[in-house]
């Protein structure tokens, strides 16, 4: 964090705090409200650790982080989209398509079901670039449709979700692609004890943070979500920014696809169904508002971790998968209720 941005953040907090202190004078309550989701995460970790000490085992912690990284990366793009008052339902399908194309270009030469039989072993950069290109292009198409035809983001990305899945199935005639090169598998592996997916996630979170807080693109995203008409009149190139925004979200889905393929070692054309909803859930738990103009990268990361800790912890505790889903749904709703109270205009 640069000095100036620290100053901004500090002053912002000070101002907010001062106002709230005046408002009700109860400091603890203020902090609970403001950092509620962090407290919830800590509480969750403490609770699960007491019930099952194995949770705090470093191997398990890294497991949680690795598991969180795939939808966590998707949630980064999704958070920016929701800040702009949009939605992207297609990221699960984009992940599958980008992932399966990457996998088809990243098989070992001796693979039994070689997708391109005459293709030798490609350096890992080839599947990576292919996946990123697919993500950016499909996302860009989403953004283009939304920006230039004016159809709602929900509809545009619903269409893309269905089409991209169809293309994925067509690409391999419904078959999975397996036996990836060791270099590719490394992307889902470890450096020493540290899982590579976690490093990639951290890097992506950092990039997204800078993008959102330190570039005009980021300011424009907030402005578009805050009041799209005012943004236009203020000279924001709304169309161009929407195009970049959705392309970025597609790109993040592609990064998630690479991590996914590297970790699993294969990609099935039916992979990542419903991941878009998990990404939306992580964003929303992290305090991103569907009203637009509100949300942070830090929130998105914490939201993803809440889901990761919850899933891992409940599994460790031997809780039925059905219960896990019920609890997850409940947490999404409660998180939004708390957030709405926090964001409601104080009169």
């Amino acid at each position: 964090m640069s000095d100036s941005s620290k100053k901004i953040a500090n002053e912002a907090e000070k101002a907010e705090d001062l106002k709230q202190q005046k408002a009700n004078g109860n400091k603890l309550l203020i902090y609970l409200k403001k950092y509620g989701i962090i407290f919830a995460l800590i509480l969750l970790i403490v609770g699960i650790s007491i019930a099952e000490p194995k949770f705090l085992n470093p191997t398990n912690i890294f497991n949680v982080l690795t598991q969180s990284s795939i939808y966590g990366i998707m949630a980064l793009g999704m958070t920016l989209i929701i800040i702009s008052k949009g939605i992207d339902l297609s990221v699960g399908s984009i992940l599958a398509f980008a992932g399966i194309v990457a996998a088809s270009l990243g098989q070992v030469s001796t693979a039994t079901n070689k997708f391109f039989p005459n293709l030798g072993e490609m350096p890992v950069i080839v599947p990576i670039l292919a996946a990123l290109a697919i993500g950016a292009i499909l996302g860009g198409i989403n953004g283009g449709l939304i920006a230039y035809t004016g159809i709602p983001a929900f509809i545009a990305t619903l269409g893309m979700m269905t089409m991209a899945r169809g293309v994925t199935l067509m690409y391999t005639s419904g078959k999975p692609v397996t036996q990836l090169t060791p270099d590719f598998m490394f992307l889902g592996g470890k450096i020493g004890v540290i899982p590579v997916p976690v490093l990639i996630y951290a890097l992506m979170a950092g990039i997204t943070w800078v993008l959102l807080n330190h570039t005009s693109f980021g300011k424009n995203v907030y402005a578009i979500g805050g009041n799209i008409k005012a943004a236009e009149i203020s000279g924001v190139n709304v169309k161009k920014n929407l195009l970049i925004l959705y392309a970025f979200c597609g790109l993040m889905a592609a990064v998630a696809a690479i991590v996914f393929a590297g970790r699993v070692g294969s990609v099935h054309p039916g992979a990542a169904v419903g991941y878009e909803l998990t990404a939306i859930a992580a964003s929303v738990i992290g305090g991103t508002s569907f009203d637009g103009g509100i949300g942070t990268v830090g929130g998105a990361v914490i939201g993803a971790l809440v889901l990761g800790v919850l899933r891992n912890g409940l599994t460790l505790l031997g809780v039925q998968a059905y219960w896990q889903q019920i609890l997850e749904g409940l947490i999404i709703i409660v998180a939004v209720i708390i957030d709405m109270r926090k964001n409601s205009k104080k009169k």
Partner: protein
Amino acid sequence: MEEQKYLVEMKNILKNFPGVQALRGVDLNVGYGEIHALVGENGAGKSTLMKCLIGMHPPTSGQIFFEGNELNNYNTSDALKMGIAMIHQELSPVLHRSIMENIWLGREPKTKFGFVDHQKMYDMTKEVLKTINLDVDPKMLMVDLTIAKTQMIEIAKAISYNAKVIIMDEPTSALTKKEIVQLFGIMRQLKADGKSLIYISHKLDEIFEISDKITVFRDGKLIGTDNKEKFDVQSLIKMMVGRDVTEMFPKIDCEIGEIKLAVTGLSDTGGRFNDVSFNVRKGEILGIAGLVGAGRTEVIETLFGIRRKMSGQVMIDGKEIDIESPMDAIKNKMALLTEDRRLDGIFPSLTVFQNTIIANLRSYIKKNGLLDNTKALKDVNHYVEAIKIKTPSIFQRVENLSGGNQQKVLVARWLLTEPEILILDEPTRGIDVGAKAEIHRLITALAGQGKSIIMVSSELPEVMGMSDRIMIMHEGKVTGIIDNRKDLSQEEIMTFATGNSSANQAKM
């Protein structure tokens, strides 16, 4: 039944919001069949008091009597049933449903089978509309009505509830002169029918025209209440702001330079205006007057690239330029303060800081592509001080600021872009007297710096007080461009604005 002197009696009303004392022991007595005006600057407590009355915000302490009975623990729908109705400043009808469905929303007449009785609803609506002499088809959709008609439908709705007191919050702010006359007619008729009206307004001339009694608030306190004859404009303003506002329009004559912007034969694609030509010089304030619907806003929006032009030429500094989007306009050093702050001005959920820098991000991009926050902070802080934006911090959400301060944030946004042509559409609408004078001072100071200013305003005193020249429009055409003079009368401008000046051709 014992005869009551007052229909509404509010005694020693105290209202605390977290951190703010909005009302500090206020009394209000409204008699039967009386039009009672509430005046005061924004934040004086008028609207809060009314929200207490309609049960929206229960008072922290104090008593409310209605027809002699003390009211306790009631909500807005209870108030409505008792006969207390409020017509809010910002109307929110169900746009894509009909007039009748809007009026009877939630209490639709039913047939004996429990279905909605549309015929009965239609007849009942006709009847209600007749009481205010409004001749519209009850089946018309709300979305097709003008703001004035929408407001009258709201009044009809209040009548349909048998309202005994109707509160109107700034009802004339978006109406034309003609519509205001019509509204006042309805108000007088309601009064004759024995209903009481509470009327909140910033427009002092209207207050003197329509009201019987005036109550003045300042800082949540009652400053004075009496028959209107006991007040005059100067004394009223003094009571409202707590000081003498000697200069409402502090226009300073400044040196007028060469032609900055010249528009010839401008027409838009929607046919909202036709063949509009005018020019603005450096250091000049050009006022644009006209009735609502005359096409004033459309002209400047086309000029700024928000609307598409069909034909016409725009020249800046003698060079023809093509503006197809606000981006182009901003590149050509133009700035537009829009008419509707909330709709297309502010970003409510964002901070004062973000709201201010948004039109000028371009100039804060460093060589490495990131934003120069230090410089942006410095600039924003400079303007917050320079034009006296009252905010606890520049990181306050702009929605928590008062209307006048929100408007100043928007002014700061545009000043940051260092514009040479400033277009201001209703720059002081809905702003209290004190802030208004400050904005006027700012405008004249900017002209003094050699900036060219185009100011659209529906308030004739403002146009006449601030402009060097006045362009008047009527039904999409320029009917006159006249030099401002001391002896110019409102009537003269109105002749042009109503299109009754065929003899007077435009004098350039």
